[in-house]
């Protein structure tokens, strides 16, 4: 196949030339990319490889009034296993000892873990869940197990830390303290956590990092661009002991009476500090748990506890006095076409106004108030409103129920409205709002705002202090207050609350039994439902604490009168707080110890703040506090035992490197 020589050369040049042109094209394109558009690409590369990382701020703690932790954030670990990355020989060699170790730790049989791992390997599962919610020391233990100790790439060990909100006091006061939203992590809506979320959550920091290889990022600068600001600590007014007493007293009564739900509030008379809030609701299986914040949110007809309000108005406006006689007849009268009954068969006949409150006569109050105000009901309702009882108190926690105090001209006003109000119907209030009124009576007429928070702190620095807020300097004259105080005391001595009477301890208060869910009269008649309540204070002479107990829908077979259902709860709380107190001497001692520990505790925080990396003295501290303190300082803590710290492996004052292990023995 001969071809002409010149032609061949031309063809060679053509082919070579063509190739050379293509190569030139590439060189031009390279020039274009690297110089013409180089700046654009360099910028894109920088954007690609650096990323602003968010450094989460530590959420502040919620403390009780004595410094015990109510809520705190702790790290928890989820352990997963990448069954694909592990080499066959490592897998074979370690799978049995690993399963044995896990079995020892978690109690499931070793064969269970072996099956789990083998199945994961054959299914090429790269994200097998092994354990969740492990504390730090457990996580370290798992990390050191055979195979897992080879690390993430060769051992398939995946540990995912997350921050969990812990409540060291358990479920007590859970509703008041508040919870992380189950569906949106990091979001707190309810309780103190919700109310002070902004202060607790702090501010996120930022750190610029550069990607250096798959999944590895290296900080660009030595320091964070923006340092995270840890959240403030919130010191609540809650007293752990009182909360415990209130919780268990309420729980016992709810269980005994098979009630639907109930709440208890204990308030310090002089300051308005809320010392305890218990909210218990019945679950489907019949047990009770902190379900909703009834104490703050549930506005309902108060019934007889409102009679005290009515009497205070009438006495203050001098339309009657305590001796004014009222005829309650045979315990059954008809007023404006409606029947009013008293609980005593045969009625009380002619009684004084004071006695009417003592025995809680509906007829007595309906006639007294209607008689005095029927021509000018506004005079009555205006006085009630002047105490702010028709408005929300305006507490920091979300979901305060709105009270209803009707007046002439309102849609729900009728001729019956005034007499109904006199004995606590046709109005609606929350337990906290009623208690605020009773607290004012106990506080000689000074109405203070209920308070949940004492102060907000950042380490040792006080950010905010919440002083007692006075809502009303004097709701009534001292004379009226004295009279009401006297009657409330008598109620416990000889009135509806006499079953509470104790010789060596004085209490004052008012029972209440209100019908509820009665809009369908026939259904109610078949299955009557009540709200039983007791509001009052103790000791009667020199009131220290006010307290309200409200129990909804107790089983009517067991009883429903305020005196029977809620009175005993009030009494138990009052007595536990005050009379069961041979403890007093001991408490003094405990406080002394606590003061020392607290002082130490605070000085550690001061040190932390100054970034002095010295191991603090944690002896005598609660184990949990010690662990979080040391971990916050960057040490790894291993805990043995339960309780308070007996000794620490590295003594106070030394400054080992961050990450050093410290073993704490508790007892």
């Amino acid at each position: 196949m001969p071809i002409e020589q010149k032609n061949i050369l031309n063809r060679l040049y053509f082919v070579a030339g063509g190739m050379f042109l293509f190569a030139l094209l590439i060189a031009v394109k390279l020039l274009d990319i690297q110089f013409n558009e180089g700046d654009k690409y360099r910028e894109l590369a920088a954007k690609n490889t650096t990323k602003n990382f968010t450094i989460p701020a530590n959420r502040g703690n919620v403390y009780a009034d004595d410094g015990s932790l109510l809520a705190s954030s702790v790290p928890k670990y989820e352990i997963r296993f990448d069954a694909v990355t592990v080499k066959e020989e490592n897998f074979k060699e370690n799978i049995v000892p690993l399963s044995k170790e896990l079995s020892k730790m978690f109690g499931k049989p070793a064969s269970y873990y072996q099956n789990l791992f083998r199945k994961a390997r054959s299914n090429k599962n790269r994200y097998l869940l092994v354990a969740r919610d492990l504390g730090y020391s457990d996580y370290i233990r798992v990390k050191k197990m055979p195979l897992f100790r080879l690390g993430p790439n060769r051992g398939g060990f995946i540990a995912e830390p997350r921050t969990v909100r812990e409540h060291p006091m358990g479920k007590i006061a859970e509703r008041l303290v508040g919870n992380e939203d189950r569906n949106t992590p990091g979001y707190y809506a309810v309780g103190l956590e919700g109310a002070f979320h902004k202060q607790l959550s702090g501010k996120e920091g930022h750190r610029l990092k550069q990607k250096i290889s798959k999944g590895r990022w290296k900080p660009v600068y030595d320091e964070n661009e923006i340092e995270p600001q840890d959240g403030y600590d919130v010191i609540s007014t809650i007293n752990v002991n009182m909360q415990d007493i209130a919780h268990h007293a309420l729980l016992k009564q709810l269980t005994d009476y098979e009630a639907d739900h109930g709440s208890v509030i204990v308030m310090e008379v002089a300051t308005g500090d809320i010392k305890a809030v218990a909210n218990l609701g019945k679950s489907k299986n019949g047990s009770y748990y902190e379900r909703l914040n009834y104490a703050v949110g549930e506005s309902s007809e108060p019934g007889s506890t409102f009679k005290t309000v009515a009497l205070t108005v009438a006495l203050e406006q001098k339309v009657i006095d305590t001796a004014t006689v009222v005829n309650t007849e045979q315990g059954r009268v008809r007023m404006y076409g409606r029947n009013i009954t008293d609980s005593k068969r045969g009625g009380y006949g002619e009684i004084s106004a004071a006695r009417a409150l003592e025995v809680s006569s509906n007829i007595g109050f309906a006639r007294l108030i209607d008689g005095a105000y029927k021509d000018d009901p506004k005079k009555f309702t205006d006085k009630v409103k002047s105490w702010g009882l028709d408005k929300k108190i305006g507490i920091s926690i979300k979901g305060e129920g709105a009270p209803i105090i009707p007046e002439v001209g309102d849609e729900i006003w009728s001729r019956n409205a005034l007499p109904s109000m006199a004995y606590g119907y046709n109005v609606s209030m929350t337990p906290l709002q009623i208690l605020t009124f009773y607290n004012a009576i106990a506080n000689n007429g000074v109405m203070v705002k209920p308070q949940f928070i004492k102060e907000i702190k950042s380490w040792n620095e006080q950010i905010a202090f919440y002083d007692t807020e006075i809502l009303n300097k004097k709701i009534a004259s001292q004379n009226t207050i004295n009279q009401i105080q006297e009657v409330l005391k008598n109620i416990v001595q000889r009135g509806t609350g006499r079953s509470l009477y104790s010789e060596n301890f004085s209490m004052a208060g008012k029972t209440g039994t209100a019908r509820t869910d009665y809009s369908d009269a026939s259904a109610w008649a078949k299955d009557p439902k009540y709200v039983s309540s007791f509001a009052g204070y103790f000791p009667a002479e020199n009131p220290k604490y006010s307290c309200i107990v409200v129990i909804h829908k107790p089983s009517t077979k067991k009883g429903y009168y305020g005196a029977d259902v809620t009175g005993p709860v009030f009494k138990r709380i009052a007595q536990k707080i005050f009379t069961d107190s041979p403890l007093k001497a001991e408490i003094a001692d405990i406080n002394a110890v606590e003061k020392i520990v607290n002082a130490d505790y605070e000085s550690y925080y001061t040190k932390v703040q100054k970034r002095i990396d010295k191991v603090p003295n944690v002896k005598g501290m609660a184990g949990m506090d010690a662990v979080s303190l040391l971990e916050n300082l960057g040490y790894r803590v291993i805990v043995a035992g339960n309780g308070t710290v007996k000794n620490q492996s590295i003594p106070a004052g030394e400054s080992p490197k961050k990450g050093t292990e410290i073993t704490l023995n508790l007892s």
Partner: protein
Amino acid sequence: MAFGKTALKFDWIIMLLFAMLVTAGWFNIYSASYSSDATGLLDFSQPYAKQLLWICLSVVLIVIILALDEKFYERFSSIIYLVSLVSLAGLYLFGNNVNGATSWYLIGPASIQPSEFAKAATALALAKYVSDIQTNMSLFKDQLKAFLILAIPALLIVPQPDPGSALIYAAFIFPLYREGLHFVYLLLGFFAAALFVGTLVLGATWVSLMVLIITAAVFLKNRKRKPSRSKYAIIAIACVAFSFSVSYIFNNVFEQRHRDRFNIVLGKETDSKGIGYNTNQSEIAIGSGGWFGKGWTQGTQTKGNFVPEQHTDYIFSTVGEEWGFLGSLGVVALFVFLIIRILVLAERQKSQFARVYGYSVAAIIFFHFFVNVGMVTGLFPTVGIPLPFFSYGGSGLWGFTILLFIFVRLDAANYYYT
């Protein structure tokens, strides 16, 4: 065996260029696949360690290839070709699917990609056929037979699916041209490519309209010479038909991802995180390299694992980022030298078999180089073919080693073969 006699006649320039390319390739693979988890150079879970092993074994391969008698290649070319075809066909029965293509045999820990070896086999078969004394490349019948030799392996590779590897067979048009194929075929090729691109950019209707206007104009200009109307009509109709069939195939046979790749290169679509991601990231990597690059193992894009398949098809982006414009130009120069050297050697072969084979080697390496670098720099749509001697992969490296060193062996025989 004439090993001792010819030892000094092996073309040391080609061998040196080969060694330089493979070495540079390995350093870039090391940089692209290096991770701090690795336990050392011989951690065979790491690509660079495996590549080192392949390189060492390729030296053994070279010794064997050079030790064989040069007549072996010519004599056994048909058998080698047949074995190669069987190995390609066998994939449909025994092949394993890796990354969506059934292109691999998995034998124990190793995987073999027969299409990488089929190129050398086809080059041998083509050289043998064209150099046959009975073959006349100016005859349409023989041209058809030569095309058939190329078409069979290509058609076996396309449905794997691996259209990129099949596309390589278009490179054989160069040796065929050198051996007397009419220039029209080359023109036809270019013209078809122009029509193809034109159709995608402007649409079949506009292209057809332009074709008709141009043919009409040429016809009118030449009307004094009384051109054959039917000839012009056939050309015009063929062009219009081609344009519409391209349009139809593009819109109805291609998958969306293929369409997207073309549209991005043609500038009809832009996106940075989706379909054009690979090319975009690779352009960022190269563009951020500048004159001198960021230095070996210092590439932030390379380290950051932004460019997918970086140690295989996109290895050139590592060169661009870490060695800069000068480094990339150096690699381009190495390839150009190698190809020119092969062409020069091929041209001085006394045996036509060796010459055709040499041209085939040059064409295949060039085509790989051009398409791969074109793809990495965004000149070309994404076509998954490796950069010869550079990209990670045992089959690829060995395929090119065999291809190149058979030519070195044939060339060595040139001096005493008369």
